[in-house]
């Protein structure tokens, strides 16, 4: 089973590397959205420091959501997805592997670039680690839960906008915990509680959401 997962992750990564622009677009979107806020709100450093965790997290949410529709669309278009449904490998594992690959391509770059954005917002030095850690724990949840929405809206007209309506309310706890952890640390409190809860959410989501996604794929493909 791990072999199947490893093969699938490697395949999805290879496909992503062949189309580097897709990866770059989501990342650039994140950077641009985060850079727009100071232009709209004003560059007062204290204010920027206060809104930084929320802005970075919301931008991460949107960026991750935008790339969701590509999660199954390519495989759906060329028939690979049908083969996966018919194949012997458990669909839940296939879905989990695809969601993981999606996170490697769309979530991990956000974790790596977030400190640069934090620099723009004049965030205090010790918070960088907390911010990166919260994103590291939180963005995989976005990919795993988002996969349910991507599977449900597979092949629908206006799927992208619909997907945001389905998925964003479900992202609320992640946003609250993630941005909350950074804010706690900023206020001089220990962010452990929020981070542990994020970790718990990740474990629960990773255990259950792939099976919901598998059921959703079967519904969409029948």
């Amino acid at each position, binding site marked *: 089973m791990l072999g199947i997962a490893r093969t699938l992750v490697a395949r999805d990564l290879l496909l992503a590397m062949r189309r580097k622009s897709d990866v770059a677009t989501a990342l650039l979107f994140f950077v641009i959205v985060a850079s727009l806020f100071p232009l709209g709100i004003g560059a007062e450093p204290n204010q920027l420091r206060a809104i930084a965790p929320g802005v970075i997290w919301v931008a991460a949410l949107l960026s991750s959501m935008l790339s969701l529709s590509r999660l199954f669309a390519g495989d759906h278009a060329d028939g690979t997805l049908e083969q996966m449904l018919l194949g012997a490998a458990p669909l839940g594992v296939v879905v989990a592997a695809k969601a993981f690959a999606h996170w490697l391509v769309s979530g991990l770059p956000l974790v790596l670039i977030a400190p640069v954005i934090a620099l723009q917002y004049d965030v205090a030095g010790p918070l960088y680690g907390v911010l990166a850690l919260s994103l590291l724990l939180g963005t995989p949840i976005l990919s795993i839960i988002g996969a*349910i929405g991507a599977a*449900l*809206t597979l092949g*629908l*007209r*206006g799927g992208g906008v*619909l997907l945001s*309506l*389905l998925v*964003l*309310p*479900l992202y*609320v*706890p992640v946003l*609250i*915990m993630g941005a*909350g952890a950074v*804010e*706690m640390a900023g206020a001089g409190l220990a962010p452990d509680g929020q981070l542990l809860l994020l970790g718990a*959410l990740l474990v629960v989501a990773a255990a*259950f959401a792939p099976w*919901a996604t598998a*059921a*959703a794929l079967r*519904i*969409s493909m*029948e």
Partner: protein
Amino acid sequence: MTTQTQNIRWFWFSSPATFYPLAGTIAWVAGVLAAALTLAGLYVGFVVAPTDATQGEAYRIIYIHVAAAWMSMFLYVVMAFWAAVGLAMNVRLAFVLARAIAPTGALFTFIALWTGSLWGKPTWGTWWVWDARLTSELILLFLYFGYLALQASIDERRRSDRASALLALVGVVNVPIIYYSVQWWNTLHQGASVSLTRSPSMAKTMLLGMLLMALAFWAYSIAVVMIRARCEIRENE
């Protein structure tokens, strides 16, 4: 005496053909009940119940607000229940019921938010605060909208039923997580919001009015859901 005669035939009414006339009867009874209970509840609430010592007359909106908020959450759970029955047992009627409940649930969520803001203006001096309960009610409204939007955008009946049923189940698992995370977020941002907790002592007539209105909304929901289910059945069969 055989046990056979005592067995209720649970699945007898799961066929749309037998359910259709039953739904008509239930709709009638529940509709009349809803009208009677609403009149009684409003009478108790607006005429009998005393004016609140601290909030004045403005508090009377709770006779609609509280009942609507209860129904909004309760209906989501009921909808998810029928969605689960539909997915697990492949009963068409369960999907019809889940579909029929959603618009009423969204309506009550909206009414709860709207009346809450009408109450908030004279009492708190603002239309909206990011209170934990208000925020989670707002997100509940988004969940209803997502369900309705997914349903509306799939033309094929079977896929539409099953996909939205799955979404309702995912939603109902998330509702408690969202609720507690919002509550926590609220305590983290303390200071900006006003506490919702009212004085614990409540006149008996106030409680009676609220209960009557809750029952009235309950009966109304049943009536409307039955009528909508009948329309759905007519559309399909």
